[in-house]
């Protein structure tokens, strides 16, 4: 009741300043769509964590193998199956990186390894430095990720775009072809390649080239089809824009959000595909290391030498989770309508 009891006198009020244009003034600098999207992405902690993890893994996979003086296939049976030993952290008992295996035997002392030799992730059955092998394997996963994204961006966008933009008979023919390809499971494609070539990075690359872009082309086609008949495109066309200008200035920029989102979800799919194939022995062949193959080898001796499976499995999981989190974040940032 205190409000109404207070006396309202005219000197409490002041006439508003009526300056034309003042009310129209924008108080904050205007943000473009991409600045706004990036601001939304930065607010998403999970997506940023994912982004940092991906950058960290990329940088490490490139520089880490050179930390060790051993190559990816340098074998030495004298130092086989050593548990991990990390300088600095070896004093911390519970981390288990002090060169003592799970039976409590210090393998480094038992095998008379010189004190300056420390294998950060241990060594495998053949005495190869697991640290180098794990990061080299990560390089392969990242190569697959890069390849999948490139194929998506080049083949998928071009195919979907051309199909939708020219429409009519071109669209019909191109879509019949996609329908057939879409029906062939990509597992089947890779097996066909393994039979005529040999299992390895080449077969996986070719299988991805053939099947990897179909999802993207369908999404780009749907987007361009709906954009093609919008007023702003029509207006630009009426003003005499060439097809090239229509595509580069109007159609592609408006599809870019969907393209980015789709490719961030294609990438973990491709990484999983390679790791899965290597795990069942159809992918990367020894002596080349790949995360899937390393995990497969590590599982065979999980009880005695858990370090062989744990590190590659952890890096693979972190990589997959990071790409998924980043994809979710990008979708929320670029397409706020989808946000929940």
């Amino acid at each position, binding site marked *: 009741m205190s409000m109404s009891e207070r006396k309202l006198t005219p000197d409490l009020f002041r006439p508003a300043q009526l300056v034309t244009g003042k009310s129209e003034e924008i108080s904050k600098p205007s943000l473009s769509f991409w600045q706004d999207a990036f601001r939304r992405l930065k607010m998403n902690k999970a997506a940023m964590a994912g982004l940092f993890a991906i950058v960290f893994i990329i940088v490490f996979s490139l520089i880490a193998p050179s930390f060790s003086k051993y190559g990816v296939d340098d074998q030495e049976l004298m130092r086989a199956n050593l548990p991990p030993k990390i300088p600095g952290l070896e004093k911390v008992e519970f981390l288990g990186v002090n060169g003592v295996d799970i039976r409590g035997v210090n393998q480094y002392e038992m095998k008379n390894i010189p004190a300056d030799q420390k294998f950060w992730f241990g060594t495998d059955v053949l005495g190869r430095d697991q640290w180098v092998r794990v990061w080299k394997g990560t390089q392969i996963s990242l190569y697959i990720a890069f390849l999948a994204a490139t194929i998506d961006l080049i083949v998928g966008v071009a195919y979907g775009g051309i199909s939708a933009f020219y429409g009519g008979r071109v669209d019909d023919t191109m879509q019949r072809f996609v329908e057939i390809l879409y029906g062939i499971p990509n*597992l089947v494609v890779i097996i066909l390649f393994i039979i005529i070539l040999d299992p390895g990075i080449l077969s996986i690359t070719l299988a991805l080239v053939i099947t990897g872009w179909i999802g993207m082309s369908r999404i780009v086609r749907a987007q361009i089809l709906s954009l093609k008949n919008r007023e702003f495109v029509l207006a630009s066309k009426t003003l005499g824009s060439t097809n090239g200008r229509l595509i580069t200035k109007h159609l592609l920029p408006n599809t870019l959000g969907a393209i980015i989102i789709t490719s961030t979800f294609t990438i973990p799919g491709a990484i999983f595909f390679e790791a899965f194939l290597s795990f069942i022995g159809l992918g990367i062949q020894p002596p080349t290391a790949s995360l899937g193959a390393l995990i*497969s080898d590590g599982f065979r001796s999980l009880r005695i030498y858990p370090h062989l499976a744990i590190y590659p499995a952890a890096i693979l999981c972190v990589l997959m989770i990071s790409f998924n989190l980043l994809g979710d974040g990008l979708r929320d940032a670029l397409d706020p309508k989808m946000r929940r």
Partner: protein
Amino acid sequence: MLRYITKRVFAMLLTLLIIATLTFFLMKLLPGSPFNNQDKLTETQRYALNEKYGLNDPVPVQYINYLGKLAQGDLGYTFQFDGRTVTSMIANGMGPSATVGFEALVFGTLVGLVLGIAAALKHNTFIDYGAMIVAVFGIAIPSFVFAGLVQYYFGVKLQWLPVAFWNGPEYHILPAFSLSVGVIATVARFMRTEMLEILGTDYILMARSKGISKNAVILKHCVRNSMIPIITILGPLSIGLITGSLVIENIFAIPGIGEQFVKSINLNDYPVIMGTTLFYSFLIIAIILVVDILYGIIDPRIRVAGGKS
């Protein structure tokens, strides 16, 4: 609708024919014949063997014969065992594979539905966040890593469940659970999105304002309507289960199709590889077809009259 189904069945047969043709000619491209490097055979014996398996005919004739046999379900003989047909190997492996796959699908869908519904009803609470963290991990963590972990933890360390093999109901738990993780995650995410959308619609508000109890609205209106689009992801989910079964069956040593398949690839047993590949293609294409048709029947709003997706 009928026109659409006919068109789709036709497209499916065409795709299968293309896959079969590709596999046949790729096999012909391979150097050598099955009886090439058996030195003990005389020229006559080799000729007789080739004659018996129809390998002396011209390639087009072999192709027609191959398609004819294929239509009757005859996929040829395996190299691994004497006189066993690929069809009988697939038939033997079918039981365990289908059982694990079905158990994983049912268990995964049920758990996924419950998680998704709970997350949507308790939107923006810790239940929601917890369910979505489970979903992100379930989608991101490869099934073989997960299978290896549960096998080690529950099988080796705690010794609650058998580590591997296929000798009774308790042997089903770990493989079916490992296989279902992807299903749980996908269904939970999908269900949550759908539920949130439907909870915001006018007809839910209408039903509530008519005085129908909250539980009845949720069960009869929200959940039922949210479940319709779940059918669309059953196709991709089943394909994921087939792919997943290759590793799960290997890790848990289940005598299914996937385990045989991987073994045949490592042994270069081409007839089994090709037969199983064709079988998988058929399965996947048929599942996608059935799911698409079901979707059109269940949800009349998206009757696919023209047949363009």
